[in-house]
Protein backbone atom coordinates (compact mmCIF):
# COMPACT_ATOMS: atom_id res chain seq x y z
CA UNK A 1 0.00 0.00 0.00
CA UNK A 2 1.40 3.35 -1.06
CA UNK A 3 -0.36 6.55 -0.05
CA UNK A 4 0.55 9.99 -1.32
CA UNK A 5 -0.94 13.13 0.15
CA UNK A 6 -0.47 16.44 -1.64
CA UNK A 7 2.92 15.19 -2.68
CA UNK A 8 4.90 18.03 -4.22
CA UNK A 9 8.45 18.39 -5.49
CA UNK A 10 9.92 21.61 -6.79
CA UNK A 11 13.35 22.11 -8.30
CA UNK A 12 13.78 25.87 -8.13
CA UNK A 13 11.13 27.34 -10.40
CA UNK A 14 10.16 24.04 -11.93
CA UNK A 15 7.47 21.96 -10.28
CA UNK A 16 8.10 18.32 -11.10
CA UNK A 17 5.33 16.87 -8.95
CA UNK A 18 2.39 19.04 -8.08
CA UNK A 19 0.06 18.08 -5.23
CA UNK A 20 -0.38 14.41 -6.07
CA UNK A 21 -2.94 12.45 -4.07
CA UNK A 22 -3.25 8.77 -4.75
CA UNK A 23 -3.37 5.35 -3.17
CA UNK A 24 -1.86 2.21 -4.62
CA UNK A 25 -3.66 -0.84 -3.25
CA UNK A 26 -2.48 -4.40 -2.74
CA UNK A 27 -3.60 -7.27 -4.91
CA UNK A 28 -3.66 -5.48 -8.22
CA UNK A 29 -1.22 -4.10 -10.72
CA UNK A 30 -1.41 -0.33 -10.73
CA UNK A 31 -0.03 1.41 -13.77
CA UNK A 32 1.61 4.78 -13.37
CA UNK A 33 1.33 6.55 -16.66
CA UNK A 34 2.36 9.83 -18.10
CA UNK A 35 4.41 11.27 -20.90
CA UNK A 36 8.13 11.73 -20.41
CA UNK A 37 8.80 14.41 -17.83
CA UNK A 38 5.41 13.99 -16.16
CA UNK A 39 7.01 13.42 -12.76
CA UNK A 40 6.71 9.64 -12.56
CA UNK A 41 10.32 8.92 -11.69
CA UNK A 42 10.48 11.79 -9.22
CA UNK A 43 7.38 10.44 -7.50
CA UNK A 44 8.92 6.99 -7.27
CA UNK A 45 12.18 8.42 -5.94
CA UNK A 46 10.22 10.20 -3.22
CA UNK A 47 8.44 6.97 -2.32
CA UNK A 48 11.76 5.30 -1.45
CA UNK A 49 13.19 8.42 0.15
CA UNK A 50 15.87 9.23 -2.41
CA UNK A 51 14.30 12.65 -2.92
CA UNK A 52 12.66 14.58 -0.11
CA UNK A 53 9.25 16.06 -0.95
CA UNK A 54 9.07 19.87 -0.98
CA UNK A 55 5.71 19.49 0.72
CA UNK A 56 3.14 16.80 1.30
CA UNK A 57 4.04 13.24 2.17
CA UNK A 58 4.11 9.72 0.91
CA UNK A 59 3.95 6.59 3.05
CA UNK A 60 4.46 2.92 2.41
CA UNK A 61 2.43 0.50 4.50
CA UNK A 62 1.58 3.35 6.84
CA UNK A 63 5.06 4.74 7.45
CA UNK A 64 7.62 6.82 5.68
CA UNK A 65 10.01 4.54 3.84
CA UNK A 66 13.03 5.53 5.93
CA UNK A 67 11.21 4.68 9.15
CA UNK A 68 10.93 0.99 8.34
CA UNK A 69 13.28 -1.42 10.07
CA UNK A 70 13.77 -3.45 6.92
CA UNK A 71 13.00 -1.15 4.00
CA UNK A 72 13.85 -3.74 1.35
CA UNK A 73 11.23 -6.01 2.84
CA UNK A 74 8.58 -3.30 2.49
CA UNK A 75 9.33 -1.96 -0.96
CA UNK A 76 11.42 -3.47 -3.69
CA UNK A 77 12.14 -0.80 -6.23
CA UNK A 78 13.65 -0.77 -9.67
CA UNK A 79 14.48 2.83 -10.42
CA UNK A 80 16.66 3.81 -13.31
CA UNK A 81 18.41 0.84 -14.84
CA UNK A 82 22.02 0.25 -13.89
CA UNK A 83 22.24 1.34 -10.32
CA UNK A 84 25.10 -1.14 -10.22
CA UNK A 85 28.85 -0.64 -10.20
CA UNK A 86 30.14 -1.82 -13.59
CA UNK A 87 33.12 -3.46 -11.91
CA UNK A 88 31.09 -5.55 -9.50
CA UNK A 89 29.40 -8.83 -10.36
CA UNK A 90 25.64 -9.20 -10.14
CA UNK A 91 26.11 -11.71 -7.35
CA UNK A 92 28.32 -9.41 -5.29
CA UNK A 93 25.99 -6.46 -5.87
CA UNK A 94 22.99 -8.39 -4.57
CA UNK A 95 25.01 -9.89 -1.75
CA UNK A 96 26.05 -6.44 -0.50
CA UNK A 97 22.43 -5.33 -0.50
CA UNK A 98 21.39 -8.52 1.27
CA UNK A 99 24.04 -8.06 3.96
CA UNK A 100 22.55 -4.74 5.07
CA UNK A 101 19.33 -6.52 6.02
CA UNK A 102 20.68 -9.90 7.13
CA UNK A 103 19.04 -11.55 4.12
CA UNK A 104 20.56 -15.04 3.74
CA UNK A 105 22.80 -15.92 0.80
CA UNK A 106 20.38 -18.49 -0.57
CA UNK A 107 17.86 -15.73 -1.22
CA UNK A 108 20.50 -14.02 -3.37
CA UNK A 109 20.83 -17.20 -5.44
CA UNK A 110 17.05 -17.49 -5.61
CA UNK A 111 16.49 -14.06 -7.11
CA UNK A 112 19.39 -14.57 -9.51
CA UNK A 113 17.67 -17.71 -10.79
CA UNK A 114 14.30 -15.98 -10.82
CA UNK A 115 15.65 -13.18 -12.98
CA UNK A 116 17.36 -15.65 -15.30
CA UNK A 117 20.84 -14.35 -14.54
CA UNK A 118 22.32 -17.66 -13.39
CA UNK A 119 24.90 -17.89 -16.17
CA UNK A 120 26.20 -14.32 -15.84
CA UNK A 121 25.90 -13.73 -12.09
CA UNK A 122 29.68 -13.88 -11.53
CA UNK A 123 30.56 -11.61 -14.42
CA UNK A 124 31.21 -7.90 -14.12
CA UNK A 125 27.94 -6.03 -14.45
CA UNK A 126 29.60 -3.48 -16.75
CA UNK A 127 29.43 -6.04 -19.53
CA UNK A 128 25.67 -6.46 -19.15
CA UNK A 129 23.25 -5.49 -21.89
CA UNK A 130 20.44 -3.08 -21.11
CA UNK A 131 18.07 -6.01 -20.75
CA UNK A 132 20.36 -7.91 -18.39
CA UNK A 133 20.84 -4.75 -16.33
CA UNK A 134 17.09 -4.45 -16.11
CA UNK A 135 16.80 -8.07 -14.95
CA UNK A 136 19.43 -7.44 -12.31
CA UNK A 137 17.47 -4.39 -11.14
CA UNK A 138 14.38 -6.54 -10.82
CA UNK A 139 16.31 -9.22 -8.95
CA UNK A 140 17.41 -6.50 -6.52
CA UNK A 141 13.84 -5.30 -6.17
CA UNK A 142 12.63 -8.79 -5.25
CA UNK A 143 15.55 -9.52 -2.90
CA UNK A 144 13.74 -8.66 0.33
CA UNK A 145 10.58 -10.52 -0.70
CA UNK A 146 8.80 -7.15 -0.44
CA UNK A 147 5.12 -6.45 0.14
CA UNK A 148 5.22 -3.68 -2.41
CA UNK A 149 7.04 -3.88 -5.71
CA UNK A 150 7.68 -0.68 -7.59
CA UNK A 151 9.21 -0.72 -11.05
CA UNK A 152 10.10 2.33 -13.12
CA UNK A 153 9.81 1.53 -16.84
CA UNK A 154 10.65 -2.14 -16.36
CA UNK A 155 10.25 -3.19 -20.00
CA UNK A 156 12.84 -0.67 -21.18
CA UNK A 157 15.47 -2.47 -23.18
CA UNK A 158 13.96 -5.92 -22.75
CA UNK A 159 13.53 -8.30 -25.67
CA UNK A 160 10.05 -9.73 -26.37
CA UNK A 161 10.75 -12.71 -24.16
CA UNK A 162 11.79 -10.40 -21.35
CA UNK A 163 8.69 -8.26 -21.81
CA UNK A 164 6.51 -11.35 -21.50
CA UNK A 165 8.46 -12.42 -18.44
CA UNK A 166 7.83 -9.03 -16.79
CA UNK A 167 4.12 -9.17 -17.60
CA UNK A 168 3.75 -12.61 -16.03
CA UNK A 169 5.85 -11.62 -13.07
CA UNK A 170 3.75 -8.54 -12.36
CA UNK A 171 0.49 -10.46 -12.59
CA UNK A 172 1.85 -13.18 -10.36
CA UNK A 173 3.11 -10.73 -7.73
CA UNK A 174 -0.30 -9.04 -7.63
CA UNK A 175 -2.09 -12.38 -7.34
CA UNK A 176 0.05 -13.13 -4.28
CA UNK A 177 -1.58 -10.09 -2.71
CA UNK A 178 1.33 -7.70 -3.14
CA UNK A 179 1.07 -4.09 -4.13
CA UNK A 180 2.47 -3.68 -7.62
CA UNK A 181 3.19 -0.21 -8.95
CA UNK A 182 4.62 0.05 -12.45
CA UNK A 183 5.40 3.16 -14.42
CA UNK A 184 5.43 3.44 -18.15
CA UNK A 185 4.99 5.97 -20.89
CA UNK A 186 3.60 3.24 -23.11
CA UNK A 187 -0.13 2.91 -22.62
CA UNK A 188 -0.33 -0.17 -24.82
CA UNK A 189 2.04 -2.00 -22.50
CA UNK A 190 0.05 -0.98 -19.45
CA UNK A 191 -3.22 -2.07 -21.02
CA UNK A 192 -1.93 -5.64 -20.96
CA UNK A 193 -1.00 -5.83 -17.29
CA UNK A 194 -2.57 -3.07 -15.25
CA UNK A 195 -5.99 -3.18 -13.66
CA UNK A 196 -5.81 0.24 -12.14
CA UNK A 197 -4.28 3.36 -13.64
CA UNK A 198 -2.86 6.53 -12.22
CA UNK A 199 -2.27 9.00 -15.00
CA UNK A 200 -0.13 12.09 -14.52
CA UNK A 201 0.84 14.95 -16.78
CA UNK A 202 3.20 17.77 -15.87
CA UNK A 203 3.28 16.58 -12.28
CA UNK A 204 -0.48 16.66 -11.82
CA UNK A 205 -2.95 13.87 -11.37
CA UNK A 206 -5.05 13.50 -14.52
CA UNK A 207 -6.89 10.30 -13.74
CA UNK A 208 -7.08 7.70 -11.02
CA UNK A 209 -9.26 5.06 -12.56
CA UNK A 210 -9.54 1.57 -13.96
CA UNK A 211 -8.54 0.67 -17.47
CA UNK A 212 -12.16 0.01 -18.49
CA UNK A 213 -13.50 3.24 -17.05
CA UNK A 214 -10.79 5.25 -18.72
CA UNK A 215 -11.70 3.87 -22.13
CA UNK A 216 -15.37 4.50 -21.52
CA UNK A 217 -14.86 8.03 -20.28
CA UNK A 218 -12.88 9.00 -23.32
CA UNK A 219 -15.66 7.96 -25.67
CA UNK A 220 -14.93 4.32 -26.11
CA UNK A 221 -18.57 3.39 -26.52
CA UNK A 222 -19.54 5.80 -29.27
CA UNK A 223 -21.32 4.31 -32.27
CA UNK A 224 -21.31 5.99 -35.66
CA UNK A 225 -24.56 5.65 -37.64
CA UNK A 226 -25.37 6.89 -41.14
CA UNK A 227 -28.98 6.90 -42.14
CA UNK A 228 -31.41 8.33 -44.71
CA UNK A 229 -33.56 9.88 -42.00
CA UNK A 230 -31.42 11.19 -39.16
CA UNK A 231 -34.23 13.19 -37.57
CA UNK A 232 -36.47 10.16 -37.18
CA UNK A 233 -33.66 7.98 -35.95
CA UNK A 234 -32.91 10.53 -33.25
CA UNK A 235 -36.47 10.26 -31.98
CA UNK A 236 -36.40 6.49 -32.09
CA UNK A 237 -33.14 6.23 -30.17
CA UNK A 238 -34.00 8.86 -27.58
CA UNK A 239 -33.75 7.61 -24.00
CA UNK A 240 -32.54 8.65 -20.55
CA UNK A 241 -28.86 7.67 -20.94
CA UNK A 242 -28.58 8.13 -24.64
CA UNK A 243 -26.81 11.06 -26.25
CA UNK A 244 -27.10 11.57 -29.97
CA UNK A 245 -25.04 14.18 -31.77
CA UNK A 246 -24.63 15.05 -35.40
CA UNK A 247 -24.33 18.02 -37.73
CA UNK A 248 -27.53 19.46 -39.19
CA UNK A 249 -28.04 18.24 -42.72
CA UNK A 250 -25.57 15.41 -42.31
CA UNK A 251 -26.53 11.76 -42.59
CA UNK A 252 -24.12 10.85 -39.83
CA UNK A 253 -24.93 10.59 -36.13
CA UNK A 254 -22.77 9.76 -33.11
CA UNK A 255 -24.55 7.79 -30.45
CA UNK A 256 -23.40 7.04 -26.95
CA UNK A 257 -25.27 4.92 -24.43
CA UNK A 258 -26.40 2.23 -26.87
CA UNK A 259 -24.52 -0.58 -28.53
CA UNK A 260 -24.37 -0.93 -32.31
CA UNK A 261 -26.56 -4.01 -31.99
CA UNK A 262 -29.29 -2.15 -30.09
CA UNK A 263 -29.27 0.70 -32.61
CA UNK A 264 -29.53 -1.71 -35.54
CA UNK A 265 -32.44 -3.54 -33.96
CA UNK A 266 -34.32 -0.33 -33.16
CA UNK A 267 -33.80 1.02 -36.65
CA UNK A 268 -35.05 -2.23 -38.19
CA UNK A 269 -38.05 -2.21 -35.90
CA UNK A 270 -39.04 1.23 -37.20
CA UNK A 271 -38.09 0.51 -40.77
CA UNK A 272 -35.29 3.07 -40.97
CA UNK A 273 -32.61 2.27 -43.51
CA UNK A 274 -29.03 2.40 -42.23
CA UNK A 275 -26.03 2.90 -44.50
CA UNK A 276 -23.40 2.52 -41.88
CA UNK A 277 -23.26 1.28 -38.34
CA UNK A 278 -19.91 1.02 -36.59
CA UNK A 279 -18.70 1.06 -33.03
CA UNK A 280 -15.84 3.46 -32.64
CA UNK A 281 -13.26 1.58 -30.67
CA UNK A 282 -10.95 3.73 -28.67
CA UNK A 283 -7.67 2.17 -27.72
CA UNK A 284 -6.10 2.89 -24.39
CA UNK A 285 -3.46 4.71 -26.37
CA UNK A 286 -6.07 7.13 -27.75
CA UNK A 287 -7.57 7.59 -24.32
CA UNK A 288 -4.14 8.37 -22.95
CA UNK A 289 -3.33 10.86 -25.71
CA UNK A 290 -6.66 12.54 -25.12
CA UNK A 291 -5.96 12.89 -21.40
CA UNK A 292 -2.42 14.14 -21.70
CA UNK A 293 -3.26 16.52 -24.55
CA UNK A 294 -5.72 18.12 -22.19
CA UNK A 295 -2.96 18.49 -19.65
CA UNK A 296 -0.75 20.25 -22.13
CA UNK A 297 -3.59 22.52 -23.27
CA UNK A 298 -4.46 23.26 -19.71
CA UNK A 299 -0.96 24.46 -19.06
CA UNK A 300 -1.16 26.80 -22.02
CA UNK A 301 -3.92 28.77 -20.35
CA UNK A 302 -4.06 30.18 -16.87
CA UNK A 303 -6.50 30.35 -14.04
CA UNK A 304 -8.38 27.13 -14.69
CA UNK A 305 -7.37 25.19 -11.63
CA UNK A 306 -9.65 22.21 -11.74
CA UNK A 307 -9.61 21.30 -15.41
CA UNK A 308 -6.78 18.84 -15.23
CA UNK A 309 -8.24 16.84 -12.40
CA UNK A 310 -11.44 14.89 -12.85
CA UNK A 311 -12.95 14.36 -9.43
Amino acid sequence: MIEAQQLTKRYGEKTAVDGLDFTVRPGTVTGFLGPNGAGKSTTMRMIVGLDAPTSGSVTVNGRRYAQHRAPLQEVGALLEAKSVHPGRSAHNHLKALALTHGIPGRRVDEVIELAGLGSVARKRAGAFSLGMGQRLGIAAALLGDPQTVMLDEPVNGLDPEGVLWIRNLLTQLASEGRTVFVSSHLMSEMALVADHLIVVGRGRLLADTTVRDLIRETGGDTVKVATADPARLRDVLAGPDVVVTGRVGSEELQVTGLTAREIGLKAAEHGIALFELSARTVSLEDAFMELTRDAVEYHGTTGVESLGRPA
Partner: protein
Amino acid sequence: MSTTLTTTAGQREAVPARPAYRVTGRRVLRAEWAKLWSLRSTWITLGLGLLFLVAFGLIAATRYRSGIGSGRMDRDFARSTAVSLSLFGTNFAQLALGVLGVLVTAGEYSTGVIRSTMAAVPRRLPVLWSKAAVFGVVALVLGTSGAFVAFVFGSRIVSGTPAALGLSHSGVVRSLLGAGLYLGLVAVIGIALGALLRSVAGGISVLVATLMLIPGLVTLLPSSWQSDFSPYLPSNAGKAMFALTQDSGTLSPTSGLLVFLGWTVLALAGAAYRLVRSDV
Protein backbone atom coordinates in the same frame (compact mmCIF):
# COMPACT_ATOMS: atom_id res chain seq x y z
CA MET B 1 -14.72 -7.76 18.04
CA SER B 2 -14.27 -11.50 17.81
CA THR B 3 -13.87 -11.30 14.05
CA THR B 4 -11.14 -8.72 14.46
CA LEU B 5 -9.33 -11.03 16.83
CA THR B 6 -9.53 -13.99 14.49
CA THR B 7 -8.18 -12.02 11.56
CA THR B 8 -5.31 -10.74 13.66
CA ALA B 9 -4.56 -14.26 14.79
CA GLY B 10 -4.73 -15.45 11.19
CA GLN B 11 -2.24 -12.80 10.14
CA ARG B 12 0.05 -13.73 13.00
CA GLU B 13 0.19 -17.26 11.73
CA ALA B 14 1.10 -16.04 8.30
CA VAL B 15 3.91 -13.83 9.57
CA PRO B 16 6.55 -16.49 10.45
CA ALA B 17 6.67 -17.40 6.76
CA ARG B 18 8.30 -14.02 6.19
CA PRO B 19 11.63 -13.77 7.95
CA ALA B 20 12.15 -10.68 10.06
CA TYR B 21 14.98 -8.84 8.38
CA ARG B 22 16.40 -5.73 9.90
CA VAL B 23 19.01 -3.12 9.05
CA THR B 24 21.63 -2.73 11.77
CA GLY B 25 24.87 -0.78 11.98
CA ARG B 26 26.93 -3.97 12.01
CA ARG B 27 25.20 -5.27 8.92
CA VAL B 28 25.82 -2.05 7.03
CA LEU B 29 29.47 -2.34 8.07
CA ARG B 30 29.62 -5.89 6.72
CA ALA B 31 27.96 -4.81 3.50
CA GLU B 32 30.49 -2.02 2.99
CA TRP B 33 33.32 -4.41 3.76
CA ALA B 34 32.01 -6.78 1.08
CA LYS B 35 31.55 -3.93 -1.38
CA LEU B 36 35.10 -2.68 -0.88
CA TRP B 37 36.71 -6.05 -1.61
CA SER B 38 34.42 -6.98 -4.49
CA LEU B 39 36.01 -4.40 -6.79
CA ARG B 40 39.23 -5.06 -8.64
CA SER B 41 40.22 -1.39 -8.36
CA THR B 42 40.46 -1.77 -4.57
CA TRP B 43 43.06 -4.51 -4.84
CA ILE B 44 45.03 -2.69 -7.51
CA THR B 45 45.06 0.68 -5.75
CA LEU B 46 45.87 -0.78 -2.35
CA GLY B 47 48.65 -2.80 -3.98
CA LEU B 48 50.02 0.35 -5.56
CA GLY B 49 49.76 2.23 -2.29
CA LEU B 50 51.76 -0.43 -0.47
CA LEU B 51 54.28 -0.63 -3.29
CA PHE B 52 54.78 3.16 -3.28
CA LEU B 53 55.14 3.22 0.47
CA VAL B 54 57.80 0.51 0.63
CA ALA B 55 59.57 0.96 -2.70
CA PHE B 56 60.07 4.73 -2.52
CA GLY B 57 61.31 4.42 1.05
CA LEU B 58 63.91 1.87 0.00
CA ILE B 59 64.89 3.91 -3.04
CA ALA B 60 65.40 6.98 -0.87
CA ALA B 61 67.50 4.95 1.58
CA THR B 62 69.62 3.53 -1.23
CA ARG B 63 70.20 6.96 -2.74
CA TYR B 64 71.23 8.31 0.63
CA ARG B 65 73.70 5.53 1.14
CA SER B 66 75.28 5.93 -2.25
CA GLY B 67 75.36 9.72 -1.93
CA ILE B 68 76.73 9.95 1.60
CA GLY B 69 80.35 9.35 0.65
CA SER B 70 80.38 11.66 -2.36
CA GLY B 71 79.91 14.88 -0.38
CA ARG B 72 77.78 16.37 -3.11
CA MET B 73 74.50 15.63 -1.38
CA ASP B 74 72.17 18.55 -0.77
CA ARG B 75 71.99 19.73 2.78
CA ASP B 76 68.41 18.72 3.58
CA PHE B 77 68.95 15.25 2.28
CA ALA B 78 72.12 14.94 4.29
CA ARG B 79 70.19 15.56 7.51
CA SER B 80 67.88 12.62 6.83
CA THR B 81 67.34 9.83 9.31
CA ALA B 82 66.44 6.22 8.74
CA VAL B 83 62.86 7.19 9.65
CA SER B 84 62.53 10.09 7.24
CA LEU B 85 64.13 8.08 4.44
CA SER B 86 61.95 5.02 4.99
CA LEU B 87 58.82 7.11 5.16
CA PHE B 88 59.63 8.98 1.96
CA GLY B 89 56.98 6.87 0.20
CA THR B 90 54.17 8.27 2.38
CA ASN B 91 53.81 11.14 -0.09
CA PHE B 92 52.87 8.75 -2.84
CA ALA B 93 50.98 6.21 -0.77
CA GLN B 94 48.73 8.98 0.54
CA LEU B 95 47.67 9.74 -3.03
CA ALA B 96 46.77 6.14 -3.75
CA LEU B 97 44.80 5.78 -0.52
CA GLY B 98 43.13 9.18 -0.71
CA VAL B 99 42.08 8.63 -4.32
CA LEU B 100 40.69 5.21 -3.48
CA GLY B 101 38.76 6.83 -0.63
CA VAL B 102 37.24 9.32 -3.07
CA LEU B 103 36.37 6.45 -5.41
CA VAL B 104 34.63 4.50 -2.66
CA THR B 105 32.09 7.28 -2.15
CA ALA B 106 32.04 9.46 -5.28
CA GLY B 107 32.24 6.30 -7.41
CA GLU B 108 28.83 5.31 -6.08
CA TYR B 109 27.38 8.52 -7.45
CA SER B 110 29.04 8.27 -10.84
CA THR B 111 27.94 4.66 -11.35
CA GLY B 112 24.46 5.00 -9.82
CA VAL B 113 25.04 2.39 -7.08
CA ILE B 114 24.20 5.10 -4.58
CA ARG B 115 20.51 4.67 -5.39
CA SER B 116 20.64 0.99 -4.48
CA THR B 117 22.70 1.76 -1.40
CA MET B 118 20.39 4.48 -0.11
CA ALA B 119 17.25 2.51 -0.90
CA ALA B 120 18.63 -0.29 1.27
CA VAL B 121 19.75 2.07 4.06
CA PRO B 122 17.45 5.08 3.77
CA ARG B 123 18.76 6.54 7.03
CA ARG B 124 21.91 7.17 5.01
CA LEU B 125 24.41 8.13 7.71
CA PRO B 126 25.28 4.55 8.70
CA VAL B 127 26.58 4.13 5.15
CA LEU B 128 29.00 7.06 5.50
CA TRP B 129 30.23 5.96 8.93
CA SER B 130 30.65 2.39 7.70
CA LYS B 131 32.58 3.40 4.60
CA ALA B 132 34.84 5.67 6.67
CA ALA B 133 35.40 2.97 9.30
CA VAL B 134 36.01 0.11 6.89
CA PHE B 135 38.32 1.94 4.56
CA GLY B 136 39.98 3.96 7.33
CA VAL B 137 40.93 0.78 9.17
CA VAL B 138 42.11 -0.94 5.99
CA ALA B 139 44.33 2.04 5.16
CA LEU B 140 45.56 2.24 8.75
CA VAL B 141 46.61 -1.41 8.75
CA LEU B 142 48.17 -1.17 5.32
CA GLY B 143 49.93 2.11 6.15
CA THR B 144 51.28 0.88 9.48
CA SER B 145 52.55 -2.41 8.13
CA GLY B 146 54.00 -0.67 5.08
CA ALA B 147 55.79 1.85 7.30
CA PHE B 148 57.32 -0.88 9.45
CA VAL B 149 58.39 -2.96 6.47
CA ALA B 150 59.93 0.10 4.82
CA PHE B 151 61.78 0.97 8.02
CA VAL B 152 63.05 -2.53 8.74
CA PHE B 153 64.62 -2.77 5.30
CA GLY B 154 65.44 0.92 4.95
CA SER B 155 67.30 1.04 8.25
CA ARG B 156 69.37 -1.95 7.15
CA ILE B 157 70.35 -0.13 3.99
CA VAL B 158 71.51 2.94 5.88
CA SER B 159 73.13 1.09 8.78
CA GLY B 160 76.60 2.41 9.47
CA THR B 161 75.76 5.86 8.07
CA PRO B 162 74.85 8.97 10.15
CA ALA B 163 71.20 8.28 9.39
CA ALA B 164 71.21 4.87 11.05
CA LEU B 165 68.51 4.24 13.66
CA GLY B 166 67.04 1.13 15.25
CA LEU B 167 63.44 0.35 16.12
CA SER B 168 64.36 0.72 19.79
CA HIS B 169 65.59 4.28 19.24
CA SER B 170 63.37 6.78 20.99
CA GLY B 171 60.51 8.05 18.86
CA VAL B 172 61.00 5.61 15.99
CA VAL B 173 58.04 3.36 16.74
CA ARG B 174 55.89 6.43 17.46
CA SER B 175 56.82 7.90 14.06
CA LEU B 176 56.02 4.69 12.23
CA LEU B 177 52.67 4.34 14.00
CA GLY B 178 52.04 8.02 13.28
CA ALA B 179 52.62 7.43 9.58
CA GLY B 180 50.13 4.55 9.57
CA LEU B 181 47.59 6.66 11.41
CA TYR B 182 48.18 9.54 9.01
CA LEU B 183 47.49 7.32 6.02
CA GLY B 184 44.35 5.95 7.70
CA LEU B 185 43.07 9.48 8.23
CA VAL B 186 43.94 10.52 4.66
CA ALA B 187 41.78 7.62 3.51
CA VAL B 188 38.91 8.87 5.66
CA ILE B 189 39.37 12.38 4.25
CA GLY B 190 39.17 10.86 0.76
CA ILE B 191 35.89 9.15 1.72
CA ALA B 192 34.54 12.43 3.08
CA LEU B 193 35.58 14.50 0.06
CA GLY B 194 34.00 11.98 -2.30
CA ALA B 195 30.73 12.06 -0.37
CA LEU B 196 30.81 15.83 -0.04
CA LEU B 197 31.52 16.61 -3.70
CA ARG B 198 29.82 13.54 -5.24
CA SER B 199 32.26 13.68 -8.10
CA VAL B 200 35.38 11.59 -8.63
CA ALA B 201 37.21 14.34 -10.50
CA GLY B 202 36.21 17.02 -7.99
CA GLY B 203 37.10 14.86 -5.00
CA ILE B 204 40.52 13.96 -6.35
CA SER B 205 41.27 17.58 -7.28
CA VAL B 206 40.44 18.87 -3.83
CA LEU B 207 42.40 16.04 -2.24
CA VAL B 208 45.51 16.70 -4.29
CA ALA B 209 45.18 20.45 -3.75
CA THR B 210 44.85 20.01 0.02
CA LEU B 211 47.68 17.55 0.45
CA MET B 212 50.16 18.73 -2.16
CA LEU B 213 49.43 22.12 -3.71
CA ILE B 214 48.31 24.35 -0.86
CA PRO B 215 51.53 23.89 1.19
CA GLY B 216 53.43 25.15 -1.85
CA LEU B 217 51.11 28.10 -2.36
CA VAL B 218 51.44 29.17 1.25
CA THR B 219 55.12 29.94 0.69
CA LEU B 220 53.90 32.88 -1.41
CA LEU B 221 52.37 34.48 1.66
CA PRO B 222 54.32 36.99 3.79
CA SER B 223 56.55 34.99 6.11
CA SER B 224 54.94 36.30 9.31
CA TRP B 225 51.59 34.89 8.17
CA GLN B 226 53.23 31.71 7.06
CA SER B 227 54.51 30.79 10.46
CA ASP B 228 51.12 31.39 12.10
CA PHE B 229 49.21 29.59 9.51
CA SER B 230 51.25 26.97 7.84
CA PRO B 231 51.70 24.41 10.70
CA TYR B 232 47.94 24.04 10.93
CA LEU B 233 47.40 23.13 7.29
CA PRO B 234 46.24 19.54 6.89
CA SER B 235 49.38 18.46 5.09
CA ASN B 236 51.80 20.03 7.58
CA ALA B 237 49.85 18.96 10.64
CA GLY B 238 49.73 15.47 9.18
CA LYS B 239 53.47 15.38 8.54
CA ALA B 240 54.10 16.44 12.13
CA MET B 241 52.42 13.20 13.19
CA PHE B 242 55.26 11.10 11.86
CA ALA B 243 58.25 13.45 11.99
CA LEU B 244 60.98 12.16 14.27
CA THR B 245 62.13 15.62 15.29
CA GLN B 246 60.35 18.94 15.49
CA ASP B 247 61.61 22.40 14.81
CA SER B 248 60.10 25.76 15.74
CA GLY B 249 57.89 25.85 12.62
CA THR B 250 56.12 22.53 13.16
CA LEU B 251 53.63 21.13 15.62
CA SER B 252 54.40 18.37 18.09
CA PRO B 253 53.22 14.90 17.03
CA THR B 254 50.29 15.06 19.44
CA SER B 255 49.14 18.51 18.34
CA GLY B 256 49.69 17.46 14.73
CA LEU B 257 47.44 14.46 15.31
CA LEU B 258 44.79 16.61 16.98
CA VAL B 259 44.83 19.21 14.20
CA PHE B 260 44.73 16.59 11.46
CA LEU B 261 41.96 14.75 13.28
CA GLY B 262 40.11 18.08 13.40
CA TRP B 263 40.37 18.45 9.63
CA THR B 264 39.15 14.89 9.17
CA VAL B 265 36.16 15.46 11.43
CA LEU B 266 35.38 18.70 9.59
CA ALA B 267 35.41 16.96 6.21
CA LEU B 268 33.27 14.09 7.52
CA ALA B 269 30.79 16.52 9.08
CA GLY B 270 30.46 18.34 5.75
CA ALA B 271 29.90 15.03 4.00
CA ALA B 272 27.30 13.96 6.56
CA TYR B 273 25.46 17.26 6.24
CA ARG B 274 25.26 17.00 2.46
CA LEU B 275 24.27 13.33 2.61
CA VAL B 276 21.37 14.00 4.93
CA ARG B 277 20.25 17.26 3.38
CA SER B 278 20.35 16.74 -0.34
CA ASP B 279 18.56 14.35 -2.64
CA VAL B 280 20.50 11.38 -3.88
